[in-house]
């Protein structure tokens, strides 16, 4: 985390709200993103078609799948895991039309995996509502060896590719779905700052 100045590339996530004007709504959620889905269902329900993909996750606090299924069984399809959901999403996007509004909720890694699928169909980043749920865990791209280390909870991480200790920056690449990781002790090898869990 960098406090000295605000880094504009760091994504800011919002709370999901239905768009009033739409032809259809597509909601894609994973794990604790289920809570964001439930929050949507607490709002005035849209008059247009709603479809949803929900991917179960072993990290979830609650059994969102069951709750969602009990509320709107026809609109949501439940998947055992994120990969299955993403695959099914990819295969169904050709059916959707302009006017469809997109909502994604879950971990940061999941959000950007979904975004990538949507980009392939010409959906632009601003067209996608994103709510970060459950964990601040980061994916970190090592600029030195190019490996991406997932599920990072600390400000400094051992790169899974080259073992260097990387400082986890706030500078974020949407293309990679990862934060920049830079060797923390290049100037003075071994001189590592305090390692803290800042992305629980």
């Amino acid at each position, binding site marked *: 985390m960098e406090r000295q100045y605000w880094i504009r590339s760091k994504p800011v996530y919002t709370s999901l709200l239905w768009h009033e004007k739409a032809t*259809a709504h597509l909601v894609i959620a994973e794990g604790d993103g289920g809570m964001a889905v439930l929050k949507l269902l607490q709002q005035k329900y849209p008059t247009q078609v709603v479809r949803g993909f929900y991917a179960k996750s072993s990290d979830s606090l609650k059994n969102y799948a069951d709750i969602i299924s009990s509320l709107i069984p026809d609109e949501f399809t439940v998947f055992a895991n994120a990969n299955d959901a993403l695959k099914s999403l990819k295969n169904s996007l050709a059916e959707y*039309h302009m*006017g469809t509004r997109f909502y994604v909720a879950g971990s940061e890694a999941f959000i950007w995996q979904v975004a990538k699928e949507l980009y392939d169909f010409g959906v632009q980043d601003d067209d996608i509502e994103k709510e970060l749920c459950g964990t601040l865990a980061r994916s970190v791209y090592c600029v030195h060896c190019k490996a991406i280390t997932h599920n990072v909870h600390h400000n400094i991480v051992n790169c899974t590719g080259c073992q260097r200790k990387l400082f986890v920056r706030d500078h974020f690449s949407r293309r990679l779905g990862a934060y920049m990781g830079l060797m923390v002790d290049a100037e003075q090898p071994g001189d590592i700052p305090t390692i803290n869990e800042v992305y629980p």
Partner: protein
Amino acid sequence: MSHLNVKVAAIEQVTEYVKHFTLVSENGEKLPSFSGGSHVVLALNIKGRIHRNPYSLMSSPLNTENYGVSVRKQELSRGGSVFMHEQIEVGSRFQITYPVNLFSLSKLSHKNILIAGGIGITPFLSQIVDLNRTQTDYELHYAYRSPEHGAFREEIQEMCGDRSHFYVASDGQLIDFNDLLSEQPLGTHVYVCGPEPMVNAMIAAARELGWPEKHIHNEQFTAPQIGESFKVKLAISNIELEVPTDMSMLEAIEEAGVDAPFLCRGGACGRCELEVVACDGSIIHHDNYLTDAEKNSGKKIMPCVSRAKCQNIVVNL
């Protein structure tokens, strides 16, 4: 701003109200390539005063031998189109800007819907060349008043084949925007150019269907409005001048010998924005650039199209 010196190589009467002008470089040099949707601003000397009018480039963007522009004769205008129709002849010379594009095709688009009303067809002709060249999916929907006003219809049919659709109002054919826009695949962008009511109707239909703003594009030049005269003081140059009824504020400033920045001259791009230091009346905004908040603040003005209803307005130029 750099200029190109051109002369008219050919003039063609396309329809009753539309003339097409072919322009070549005065010294026979190649003209710059450009991107589809671009326009140039012609500097026309009308009765001793320079009028600057933007016209879309209709020729192929890859054609460096000549440029083509079309002008529709507008009776209720400040004279630019009338001048083009009645005074410009083959051999006439004037300056034009380099091509400027305020209506470009999105390179991320998977499909493009082009909607033209009347003379609004002009920017699409160069865009179609780019779309054909890059083999991007598109449709052109061209609405016009009656058969004799369908300028360039044949040319379009040749270039677009079955991607082109025509709507002749006198035959009762009208574009149903809701129909047109309701089942387009993801990644489609829509572009519209034509009379204001048509543009507004299309945009309203797209928004109602839930099309995101960034997928909706429109080109709409606002012509400078005719209005009451008013006095302007340029605070930095320390010059006072009067903006007469038939001149825009920007033109009046230029007449006074001051080099003011500008680009589109149609209230769209923001380049000519001036800070208002004082105004003892109100600003009449005619542009499409400032936000409502900015317009209400009274601290900014776009001199290419806007005016003031006052005794005196002071700007930071």
